[in-house]
């Protein structure tokens, strides 16, 4: 087991390194430079050359890459050109926002998805099952950002139930330092989390319905019923326990989905998380923010897979990891 974990962690680090290298090369090869987009008309080429020299951008790419890796090894992620602050600080501000959003979305995703999936499986082929199945398929097929726009229009613009964007009220609650401001934060969080969570829940429900149906027909479930257990206990304790197993894969898969979906949803709701930071950085050719975001994102994906594999081994005694 220990050997297996060590090997997986080493492989994960290698993957992250490869992603960083690839991103580094691609973003440096991109058209334009960090200093051209806004200053192209007014600044003479000499000044740009001087700034580039100051940041070391005029050196050969492999030298820059070597320096970047050396800084990375000592924990220095570099400096953002556009934000005029260390990349690590910018990331440290953004990560909690994305994390809270992903967590809230995941909660909605699993709570709604599990409930719907189990309900549909128990009432198989009833009107409710068919209607919910089609609704889930439709929601699962929507562009996430479009659902976000629709919710924004109806719930924020027309009904004024929720704020239109941003993580907090800039006038009343610039900082999270009191209880009302914490409530304000969650109030702002609702719509983006709902958007991400509902699209995920639709997929989870489809998945869980199939898993539950497979389990419900097995002999041990019949045995449990024959023992005279109440239906509720049979379904929720005996059946659901095994129907949750394939679910663990979903946890691992949900990570990249939430991060990817978050890129667009964060843009729609002006949510200052990783997705928005990364998109802006790519557009502004803010090289080190892009590579920093790549490190964080790919680490989370790799970590998600690793955790899913470990959970599998813990949850299912039949699965014994190789090298254990």
């Amino acid at each position, binding site marked *: 087991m220990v050997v297996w974990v060590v090997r997986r962690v080493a*492989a994960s680090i*290698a*993957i*992250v390194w*490869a*992603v960083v290298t*690839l*991103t580094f090369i*691609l*973003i440096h*090869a*991109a*058209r334009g430079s960090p200093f051209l987009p806004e200053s192209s008309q007014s600044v003479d080429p000499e000044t740009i050359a001087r700034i580039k020299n100051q940041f070391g951008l005029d050196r050969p790419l492999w030298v820059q890459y070597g320096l970047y890796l050396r800084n990375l090894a000592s924990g220095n992620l570099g400096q953002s050109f556009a934000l005029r602050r260390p990349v690590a600080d910018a990331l440290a501000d953004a990560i909690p926002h994305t994390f809270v959003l992903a967590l809230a979305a995941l909660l909605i995703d699993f709570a709604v998805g599990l409930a719907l999936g189990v309900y549909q499986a128990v009432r198989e082929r009833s009107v409710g099952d*068919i209607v919910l199945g*089609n609704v889930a*398929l*439709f929601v*699962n*097929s*929507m*562009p*996430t*950002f*479009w659902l976000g*726009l*629709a919710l*924004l*229009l109806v719930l924020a*613009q027309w009904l004024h139930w929720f704020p239109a964007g941003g993580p907090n009220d800039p006038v009343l609650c610039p900082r999270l330092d009191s209880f009302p401001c914490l409530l304000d934060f969650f109030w702002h969080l609702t719509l983006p989390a709902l958007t991400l969570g509902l699209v995920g829940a639709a997929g989870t429900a489809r998945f869980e319905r*199939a898993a539950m*149906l*497979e389990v419900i027909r097995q002999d041990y479930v019949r045995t449990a019923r024959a023992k005279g257990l109440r239906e509720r206990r049979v379904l929720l304790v005996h059946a659901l326990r095994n129907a949750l197993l394939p679910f663990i894969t979903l946890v691992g898969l949900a990570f*990249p989905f939430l*991060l*990817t979906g978050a*890129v*667009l949803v964060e*843009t729609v709701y002006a949510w200052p998380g990783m997705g928005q930071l*990364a*998109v802006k950085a*790519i*557009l502004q*050719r803010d090289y080190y923010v*892009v590579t920093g*975001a*790549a490190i964080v*994102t*790919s680490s989370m*994906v*790799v970590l998600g897979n690793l955790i899913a594999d470990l959970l599998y081994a813990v949850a299912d005694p039949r699965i014994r990891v190789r090298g254990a």
Partner: protein
Amino acid sequence: MNVWNWVSLGGAAVTALVIVAAIRRRACAGASGRRFFRHPAAAPGLFVLAFFAAVALAAPFVAPYKPYEQIDIDHLQNQSPTTRNILGTDPYSRDVWSRLAYGARISLGIGALAMLVAVTIGAALGAAAGYFRRWVDSALMRLVDVGLALPRIFALLVVVALWDHIAVPVLVVVIGLTGWFATSRLVRAEVLSLREREFIAAARALGAGPGRVIARHVLPNAAAPIIVSAALGIGNVMLLEAGLSFLGMGVPSPAPSWGNMIADGWPKMAVAPWSATFPGLAISLVVMALNAVGDALRDALDPRKEAV
């Protein structure tokens, strides 16, 4: 919309019905075809796909305006749906329905072609990895690990930044190049089990080279999972294209794609919701149809997993 547009639109719907009926008649001759149509969403899904394909092909007939045409920039912006502009006009005074019809060409075309690129690469590399094993396998699968570690939209944004204005064919290739990882894993797993079978050994004993064995004996037997993942993947590509265009990094305006139509309509969402709503609905419908057809295909092609 004049009478001829309505007639053409009706014609597109009838054509779609006829196509689905014809497919159904032919398919029901075989066991897997019957299984396919036993899925309740299979026939409606096929109809939606055939209908939008027909609309895309017949765009000049069903659309009353040219997709770029600004009808009346002074008086006809953000017009709500009327009999003349059945889906309203967008902030640039263009007919939303006409753009939707022409946009179907770009959105469906990108979805299908990019998936074709992805599936071709995925099948070829997956088959190579599974068939040759050893270093080919480990090299390719490590590559796949890396490819799957970065969210696809992030990777696409970085790659698309290589161009100032990306041409649609390039976009297709780029989306395809970032989409083959999962397919190749699937194919590899299938090939790993196939290559130990007797008929492959027989083909090799008859002197067939690796290329011939893979193309003629291995891949046809691994076709089912490839087809299913392709059907499900097209929808994914369409969602990606929409997302990219929404961020202004996809199909360059003014060419209509359903994604950049949403992007165009978004800023005026509060006063003219139709110009962003209808393209979003179109995407959702088509992706839903693709998912339904993909599910039905899985039931049909994999008898081990009977439909539940």
